[in-house]
């Protein structure tokens, strides 16, 4: 009997093999290779390079471009998460009401999600452009002086955060709509009987019961924001200078433009650890607040 069970388990375990092989080939091997390369001075294409130990990691902490990219990455991650989720909940609550044209409004808000972030970046480039941009055309109509919106690095970081948030707010809205529709009506009926105000209903019924949805949405937005790449490349290219780079775009620039693949690998590994820690802390924090229906 035991042998039959073991044989059956062995057969079942065989089905894991293809997935494990793929995982090992596409995730584990590149990861280990990345650790190795991070300890070299490889330029990204040459056949020869030297092992330089932890020098790349040492330089990384003294590099002001890395520090700037790290702060930007935090802003992209946290900023996008806050904006997307606040707007997402607001829109979900509004669009959970019954009114004419509700489906149309939901579609319009979700539509930007379907556009590639790179394309979104190019569209926004022509919105914020100094000489041909729509925003400056509006300013001219109002007899105001045009502004070179993307010339200032600090402002550009917030513009990028906003563009990313507005593009993907549709995802948060859909997650919250699903969450809202899963909350049983009896809770609200009971609250109505007790004479609870709408704001208290939201705070004490809706929000706690939305926690699983909040966990999903926050995690998705946070990871998306922390590894923001395409829209930066299209809208600012990481500039002016290195001012709007995220860690992802900085890795790309150092790897290809700067021909410092070893150094870029070291930044990549630090970024991996950083995203893992932040995501874990946030997810654990949110999971503790979840309530069972």
């Amino acid at each position, binding site marked *: 009997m035991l042998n039959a069970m073991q044989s059956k388990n062995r057969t079942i375990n065989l089905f894991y093999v293809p997935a494990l092989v793929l995982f090992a080939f596409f995730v584990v091997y590149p990861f280990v290779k990345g650790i190795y390369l991070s300890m070299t001075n490889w*330029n990204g294409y040459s056949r020869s390079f030297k092992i330089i130990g932890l020098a790349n990691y040492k330089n990384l902490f003294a590099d002001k471009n890395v520090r700037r990219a790290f702060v930007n990455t935090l802003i992209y991650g946290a900023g996008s998460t806050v904006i997307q989720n606040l707007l997402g909940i607001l829109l979900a609550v509004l669009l959970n009401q019954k009114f004419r044209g509700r489906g149309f409004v939901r579609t319009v808000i979700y539509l930007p999600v379907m556009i590639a972030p790179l394309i979104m970046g190019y569209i926004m480039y022509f919105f914020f452009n100094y000489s041909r941009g729509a925003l400056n055309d509006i300013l001219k109509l109002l007899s105001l002086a045009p502004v*070179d919106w993307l010339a200032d690095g600090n402002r550009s970081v917030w513009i990028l955060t906003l563009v990313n948030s507005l593009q993907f707010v549709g995802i948060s809205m859909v997650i919250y709509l699903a969450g809202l529709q899963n909350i049983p009506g009896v809770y609200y009926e009971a609250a109505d009987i007790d004479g609870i105000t709408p704001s208290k209903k939201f705070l004490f019924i809706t929000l706690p019961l939305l926690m699983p949805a909040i966990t999903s949405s926050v995690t998705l937005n946070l990871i998306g924001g922390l590894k923001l790449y395409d829209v930066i490349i299209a809208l600012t290219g990481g500039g002016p*200078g290195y001012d709007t780079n995220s860690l992802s775009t900085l890795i790309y620039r150092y790897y*290809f433009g700067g021909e410092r693949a070893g150094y870029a690998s070291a930044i990549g590994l630090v970024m991996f650890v950083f995203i893992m820690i932040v995501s874990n802390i946030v997810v654990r924090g949110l999971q503790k607040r979840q309530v069972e229906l």
Partner: protein
Amino acid sequence: MKKVFTVVIAVLMCASVVFAQAAAEENPTISVWVSGAGSQVEVLKAACEDFTAETGIKVEFSAPGDTYEEMMKTKMASNDLPDVFDTHGWAVVRYSDYLMPVNDMAFYKNISSQIIPTVSKDGKTYVLPFDMDLTGIVYNVDVMNEAGVDVDKIKTWADFEAACEKIKAIGKTPVTLGGSSGVTVGWYYDRVAPSFYYTDETNSKAADLKSGKFDPKPWEEISAMLDRWVSKGYLNADCVTGDFMGDITAISTAKAGFDFIQNVAITMGRANVNPDGNMGMMPIPSKSASDEPSLISGEGVALGIWKDTKHKAAAEKLLNYLAQPEVAAKVCTATGNVPALTNVKVDLGVLQQYIDKYSDVEAFNYFDRAYCPSGMWDVMCATGQDVLAQKSGAVAESAKQMKSTFDALWGN
């Protein structure tokens, strides 16, 4: 019966594989990758199509545009390069380990002696160069006339700034520089740096650079000059976020006086923006009056053959075909550059008079290609953008970052 049938099928399959391989050898498909965009790419693509029609050898032509360098670096890393590819100024420093010498090919004897040193190492020449990028500063003739500027009297950067002041006085933009991609600001440094580092033989730092020593002081002066131009309003208002086409539009419609784009600004401006654009090219001023103005010269469009190609004969045939005077001339006309093959004669239109006029002016290779390790370009562009944006401390920081990156890439 079944056995016989199986054997017949097996024989047929083997034969088809052998014949297919033989046919592939006879009419192979070779991959050709080129950088850049616009008319020069179109000309090369059309030439490859004509080559296919004439020889039956198929060409998979690819022009990835902005991502060309990144894709080539990935291909070099995996040692899987296109059979024929464009070296875009880096035939020796970056690509020579991956190219086969062309010294034995028919066109070699026609390569101009002026370009041979740029595309050769240890006596081996690695590419078929179509043109030489002989360039200075492009200007709008009408703007100069209106402002009363005689470009032939601009000998030093101080003269250049005086000219900018006159252009500003007539309400035009003295210098157009679209820094959004960083490329045009990189071209500014490439043009200005020789006059601060080595055009003056009495004070040349060329030997130091070649031996891995980078003096950041001249670089700081170059950045300070750019910063001064921004402060004095010599640059376009959107110099940080403007783009390449914006520069070409401004220079060819007489809205700006000078630009730091290659001669292609003249050909593209006249072809795509203003057919009557009245533009010229002048030498690059020197730092001091004791020195002379100079020009920039370098590798233009150049194609080489991957040393491990499986289609060597076909690739050589293609290069020989493209080296024919009538084909190579079209490439030079598209780029607006001087032919790099002595048997190619091209009338460069409005540019020709300037090429003839300045034929005695000494030309130097691009600063980063000649004296920097590969990988400096991005830092030149990015730190230049900071200067354009007038960030606090950007001038000193540009020199500091150039020095640290130079040292890191040199392994100092």
